[in-house]
């Protein structure tokens, strides 16, 4: 993989999640394309100095989410799904929205208040005005 992973122990996300997010991001922006081979678990673990079991967990979850496929004895590859890039962005957005909803619930915001806050953020964004 040409672009380096940045793994930090000061990041609030657990290590396996950082690995997942960065692989997912590479697929989302097309740096990794369907069918591309990704490093073996032990290779990536050595490259970024993170335990084998952590990389194993990240790969397993990405496999269950359909992002990658592991072929016995041949390695791991980005799934052969042409829509993948868009699906990735969908999932990324879905994740952000879900955490916004959770935070709003903790803050006791009503559904309308949450939607109004989202509109406000969009209005303030230089590219969001329409």
């Amino acid at each position: 993989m040409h672009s380096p992973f940045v793994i930090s122990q000061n990041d609030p996300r657990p290590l396996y999640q950082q690995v997942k997010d960065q692989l997912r991001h590479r697929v989302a922006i097309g740096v990794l394309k369907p069918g591309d081979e990704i490093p073996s678990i032990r290779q990536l673990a050595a490259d970024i100095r993170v335990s084998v079991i952590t990389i194993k967990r990240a790969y397993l979850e990405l496999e269950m989410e359909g992002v990658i496929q592991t072929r016995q004895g041949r390695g791991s590859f980005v799934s052969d799904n042409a829509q993948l890039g868009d699906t990735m962005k969908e999932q990324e957005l879905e994740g952000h929205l879900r955490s916004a909803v959770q935070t709003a619930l903790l803050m006791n915001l009503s559904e309308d208040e949450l939607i109004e806050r989202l509109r406000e953020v969009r209005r303030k964004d230089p590219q969001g005005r329409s």
Partner: protein
Amino acid sequence: MTHDPSQAFSLRGVSKAFRYFRLEDLNLELPLGQIMGLVGPNGAGKSTTIRLLMGLIAPEAGTIEVLGHHVPDEVAAAKAGIAFVSDDMRLFGGATLAWHMRFVASIYPEWDESYARMLLKHFNLRAEQGMRGMSRGEQIKALLLLALARRPRLLILDEPTSGLDPVARHELLSELMQIVRDDSRSILFSSHNTQDVERISDQIAFIDRGRLVDARDKESFLERWRRISLDVPAGVTLPRFKDTVDLTLGERLATLTTDRYEPALHGLLEASGARVTDVQRMSLEEIFVASVMRSRAEVQS
């Protein structure tokens, strides 16, 4: 005889008493191809565990197997595949590092000279330098070089990073991860540095006052622990969970620490009338301190 080829080592029901210290009923095993971090306060029994594995002392009860050999009975066969470094080891002050490299190479047929040359560069060491002229950090790096270049099947390191500067520590962690690219090589290291352990270990074992407090794979270790912040209005009583490790109650606010976290816990807590305001993951260091405190409280009660 239960020779298990899938384990780098196993200790079963191992006990050993000293005058002021007792290691009790220790059960621990490391699958091949994995790294285990052994974490414990000073005097917890980490070095005793390592000395038992090395066959330097014999257990009073229990069985020990290392690389498929019974220890201490077959310790010579086991030791051919083990390399061990501790920070209280000393090399010959009057000899150079190159002399030590030739000496180790003459004993161990697996010695890898080109790897040794590479490690010299990575660790920023000079082969022609005498040991006496080396700083403590350089001596530790020299010991690590001599151990790594033997290409051991089991590498045992007692506090390997404690005398190293941050750059050398980074180099060492990189080398350790290179070793387990080969899924038949394994590493056991003891450390106070929970950050290093959290980053590179597959298995984690906590030990305190001669007892194993907890041991499991790192991912499930970290996944089980959470600190939950709660808003508890007046008149609300929190339900009791047996998996509560710690509950700190203040005015309206409570913090619950659990080692059996699951999302369903939220529902149970909120059903009592409390409100979950935050759920935090815990660092290995925080988990370690909480485990040891609980273990000590259990022993005393």
